């Protein structure tokens, strides 16, 4: 019984009926050689991750839909805060990290929602899910693409805040906090965007799902950023930095385990 089944599995391409082959007119015979049967049904994991991330970047470089809207949104946020709050130097120092992270989170949500919605609406999400690849590779490819967009926005934001708030924000430790916070936010954001993309009210559903989940990460990022900007001793920000690392690991492992269930109907 088992051998019959195994035989049927391996013969999947060798099944063309003889009479059907005989009917093939010369002009319709495939011009290209038939693809050889491969031993591995699943492609090399990291090559797939890179391929998907590269596709997202390439498509975005051509359309600039996400980056433009995210960058414009962050510019507006910085403008509104800097004009609405006529602050002295001390007050600016105390609110700048809040402005930084609020802008990253809301611009990020804008990008995450549109990134997955575009895949869903064009049907290309199905095309990705149809490929014989590990679905977690698809997930990490999307995460890397989204992370790069968020980091571009964060870079724009840091430059704008440096100019508008007249503060030195380009500190290596602050950049590390931005990176760690963005990794966690993008990971869980991509997972929840994949879940909410099937809903009609996906634009409103994503913030409702995402903000409570990333709140601890956001608070740690804001506290660590403030302490670093105020040049406080290591002991003041180290625990928050560790919390960011722990949150990133939890989100990455959790998303890896859950993505397959999230995308399947």
């Amino acid at each position, binding site marked *: 019984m088992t051998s019959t*089944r*195994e035989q*049927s*599995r391996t013969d*999947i*391409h060798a*099944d*063309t*009926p003889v009479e*059907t*082959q005989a*009917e*093939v*007119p010369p002009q*319709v*015979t*495939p*011009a*290209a*050689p*038939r*693809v*050889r049967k*491969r031993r*591995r*049904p*699943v*492609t*090399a994991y990291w*090559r*797939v991750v890179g*391929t*998907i991330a590269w*596709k997202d970047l*390439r*498509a*975005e470089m*051509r*359309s600039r839909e996400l980056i433009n809207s995210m960058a414009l949104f962050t510019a507006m946020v910085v403008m509104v805060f800097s004009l609405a709050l006529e602050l002295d130097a001390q007050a600016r120092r105390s609110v700048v990290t809040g402005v930084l992270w609020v802008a990253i989170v809301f611009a990020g949500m804008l990008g995450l929602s549109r990134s997955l919605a575009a895949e869903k609406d*064009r*049907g*290309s999400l*199905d*095309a*990705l*899910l*149809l*490929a*014989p*690849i*590990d679905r977690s590779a698809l997930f990490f490819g999307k995460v890397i693409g989204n992370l790069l967009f968020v980091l571009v926005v964060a870079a724009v934001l840091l430059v704008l805040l440096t100019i508008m708030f007249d503060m030195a924000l380009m500190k290596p430790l602050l950049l590390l906090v931005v990176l760690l916070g963005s990794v966690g936010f993008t990971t869980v954001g991509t997972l929840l965007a994949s879940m909410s993309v099937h809903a009609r009210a996906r634009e409103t559903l994503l913030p409702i799902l995402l903000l409570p989940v990333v709140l601890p990460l956001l608070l740690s990022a804001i506290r660590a950023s403030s302490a670093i900007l105020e040049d406080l001793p290591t002991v003041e920000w180290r625990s928050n930095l560790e919390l960011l690392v722990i949150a990133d690991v939890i989100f990455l492992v959790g998303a890896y385990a859950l993505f397959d269930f999230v995308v*399947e*109907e």
Partner: protein
Amino acid sequence: MIEIRNLNKIFGVNPVLRSLDLDVARGEFLALFGPNGSGKSTLLRILAALARPTSGTVRIGGWELPAEAAHVRAQLGVVSHLPLLYETLTAEENLLFFARLYDLPVAERADRVRAMLDRVGLARRAGDVVRTFSRGMQQRLAIARAILHDPAILLLDEPYTGLDQDAAALLDELLREVALAGRTAVMTTHDLRRGHQLASRIAILSRGKIAYDASTDAVSSEALPTLYADVTGAVTNR
């Protein structure tokens, strides 16, 4: 090639597929008809491993779904009413992207992509972004994407939706080539005449069950609309 036994799919409290049994032999072209909501697309999504059955067994080429879905997906090509392409990438970039996902040998990729573009009549537009293509051209490229990895089975979900007469005729020609190349195909469509012309077997799905199943020789193209109306209780003028 495809074996479905006692398949049930329930969305919430709504049963969409009910104790469905179906076999599709190798090299067979099955046209699946049925009114809206009869479960055609759901059945195809289960076969494509995009949806999980509530109960029942589905085997494709000996592999069982959903447990061995990765193996099954490598053998499938899917054409939908949506092109499943990236509008901001060129035709060539789209096919190269999917060639990488399907792990086609590096040395063969470029040649294979060019051959596919040539086969669907888009070689001259290889470098143009897909959003500049007409619906018919996008659908031809979608077929090239679906057969790029030389799948043994093609699943076609309303592939004629939105196509004009010329584009539909071109799609007819491509699907005939696909059928003659010995692939197994399952196509859902509302176009009874076209489905009858292309397929070697027809089935009518009604209320989540196969209500009629026979070779195309068993019923004429002219008699099919009446049969369809009788089986589904629908009024049709096709």
